[in-house]
């Protein structure tokens, strides 16, 4: 206990002790409690759901099994698919719009400060405000759909938030197979980079697991059917409106990140590239974009966890009941507080936590590792 002898360390420890305790109880304690709740039947019996001292039985992973394979929980599965598409388009949108704006502003146009404020402004609004504004604009009968009439064209017909059309449908039963293909593609990529970097051991392990996974996918994986019937899920077109609003809100933030990155690139580097005869496009492709890669990663992490847990924007824009724009966070609210299925709501919450952890934990791990190296 050498560190204990140091008075400063002791004081430091005492100062952070209260927040450690509070964090332990109110974050980790409640995570554990939610996890335990998700393994019970709380809410299955209406008489016990809201009683003062409910009798709760432990039922293991039954709630999770129902969510992924149960007859009435198809809405949850569609919500997972919705979250996937929303995350992909939201991140792509924010990154490309943010990068575009940053490149334009980096060339120091006139009134740069003014535009920077304009683009950053949406971030100062809460999602509820953004949602309310965009709901007005995307009303089926008015707003954006009326815009063409200003120049004499017929009004737009797109049902921004209320469309029931779905594209790119895939059966839920194909999901294990597709997941296996995607994971093995990632493993093969890891293997190739490992071989290139001379880490042979790592490369062998990655390519070996990829081969095993592919073997499983094409033999057993094809016959693994979570549901006894085909259940198609796809991208709901009603989400386009939500994605527009979310990108509008957050692209200013990525712009600020990229602008800081661009300003951090020394002018000498650009000059050197130009002297070497690089065209503008080559300059960006070979010099600037690679230098911006860490910023892209940070932005993806921040945007990724926002999109996975998004609730307020959709609640304000389309309401909690509109299934085409439903996400797991909304369903968790409905399941817990409307249907009184408290254990199932907790299970949805745990799945959300796992999804967010899958995004955040690898990032934190790599950050911590690089800090240790430093």
């Amino acid at each position, binding site marked *: 206990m050498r560190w204990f002898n140091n008075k400063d360390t002791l004081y430091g420890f005492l100062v952070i002790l209260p927040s450690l305790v509070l964090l332990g109880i109110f974050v980790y304690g409640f995570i554990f409690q939610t996890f335990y709740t998700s393994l019970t039947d709380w*809410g*299955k*019996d*209406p*008489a*016990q*759901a*809201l*009683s*003062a001292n*409910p009798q709760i039985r432990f039922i293991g992973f039954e709630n999770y099994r129902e969510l992924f394979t149960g*007859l*009435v929980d*198809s*809405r949850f599965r*569609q919500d997972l698919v919705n979250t996937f598409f929303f995350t992909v388009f939201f991140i792509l949108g924010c990154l490309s719009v943010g990068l575009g704006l940053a490149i334009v502003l980096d060339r120091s146009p006139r009134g740069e400060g003014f535009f920077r404020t304009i683009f950053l402004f949406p971030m100062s609004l809460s999602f509820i405000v953004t949602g309310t504004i965009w709901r007005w604009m995307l*009303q*089926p*009968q008015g707003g954006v759909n009326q815009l063409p009439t200003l120049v004499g064209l017929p009004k737009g017909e797109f*049902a921004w*938030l*209320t469309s*029931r059309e*779905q594209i790119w449908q895939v059966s839920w039963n194909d999901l294990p197979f597709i997941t296996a293909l995607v994971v093995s593609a990632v493993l093969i990529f890891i293997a190739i980079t490992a071989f290139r970097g001379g880490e042979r051991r790592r490369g062998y392990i990655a390519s070996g697991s990829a081969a095993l996974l592919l073997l499983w996918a094409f033999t057993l994986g094809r016959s693994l059917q979570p549901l006894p019937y085909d259940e198609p899920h796809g991208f709901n077109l009603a989400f386009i409106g939500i994605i527009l609003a979310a990108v509008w809100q957050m692209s200013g933030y990525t712009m600020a990140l990229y602008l800081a990155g661009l300003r951090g690139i020394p002018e000498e580097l650009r000059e050197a590239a130009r002297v070497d005869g690089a065209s503008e496009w080559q300059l960006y492709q070979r010099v600037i974009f690679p230098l911006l890669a860490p910023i892209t990663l940070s932005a993806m992490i921040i945007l990724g966890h926002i999109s996975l847990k998004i609730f307020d924007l959709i609640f304000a824009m*389309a*309401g*909690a*009941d*509109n*299934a*085409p724009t439903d996400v797991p966070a909304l369903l968790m*609210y*409905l399941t817990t*507080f*409307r*249907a*009184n*299925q408290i254990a199932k709501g907790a299970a949805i919450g745990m799945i959300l936590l796992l999804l967010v952890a899958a995004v955040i934990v690898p990032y934190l791990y790599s950050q911590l590792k690089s800090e240790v190296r430093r």
Partner: protein
Amino acid sequence: MKKLFLTLAALALGTVGLAQSGKLEIFSWWAGDEGPALQALIDLYKKRYPNVEVINATVTGGSGVNARAVLKTRMLGGDPPDSFQVHAGQELIGTWVVADRMEDLTGLFNQEGWMTKFPKGLIDLLSYKGKIYSVPVNIHRSNVMWYVPAKLREWGVQPPKTWAEFLTVCQTLKSKGLEAPLALGENWTQQHLWESVALGVLGAADYANLWTGKLRFNDPKAVAVWNTFGRVLDCANKDASGLSWQQAVDRVLEGQAAFNIMGDWAAGYMTTTKGLKPGEGFGWAPAPGTAGVFMMLSDSFGLPKGVKNRTNALNWLRLLGSKEGQDTFNPLKGSIAARTDSDPSKYNAYLQSAMRDWKSNRIVGSLVHGAVAPESFMSQFGTVMEIYLSSRNAQAAANAAQAIATQVRLGQ
């Protein structure tokens, strides 16, 4: 002599009122158009008990969608409001009474002589194992079809009497260039339409059997409801989920649609907010196939166990059940009194017709508005609706409905 007696009575009431002090918190979802009616009741209460501070805890959201979530958080957190609004019937019983959270009000009913003042069918709806648990304030009718008489004359159609007739009228109107003859709103109003279709297709007896478990949801008869429902939906606007029920009513008033199926709070909206005259500015008929049946819902107030101001809450319930309270509240709210002895002259033409039907029609309860199924069923029925809307598969929807009914032990 009579005057003296009245003065004495007023004095007696006054002293009782003066003796009462403290607070009373009333939890409801009556905001906006319904706010003035609640305020009138609160004013009446304050006149009787001037020393009581009334806290009006209103949570907005049609049909109580948001209020119920807030209420649950408060009840689970051990901070119940002194009295809360709840739809009479299974919404209260299946959620709070079975969980042993409510006080038995049978004594209050006997004391105030309400057993003979409220219809027996309604008291049965409020009862669980022979005890009564809430005081009904009003009666609304759910199965009403609204239209504008002048517009129908212009189009040359009559209000349809059955759903088959409705579909024919719908085709006629479509051929005359009306894109969506039926105006429809957000999720819960779609379920509202479903219950009227179900009542029209099944008839009153089989409709009631659904909720007692005698008719299963996957019975061919019940599956047929979904098929008709799908064809009715084809007559409705595609942007339904973006509209509130008021906006859906507006479509009818503006002539963009011919019909709207909504509860009779729509009459309150059209007379109070829109300033229309019942019978001229708007017309009404029972939803197709439901003539002679009154699908009812009722707002009621209960008394949670362990409240802070029990006496004040009991006085509030006394006021709600009294003739004076009901006749103050209902003409403003656009509903009829739950008591059978209320004064018809205080009500408008639509409400008088509803009062006549309330006394003569066969009574069944509404699903969406909490009369026949517990909250756990109602809420998940939204998912069943989504299964149907995205797949248009009647059998799949019926199977899902039966699965939920089994899970929440409907009718047991």
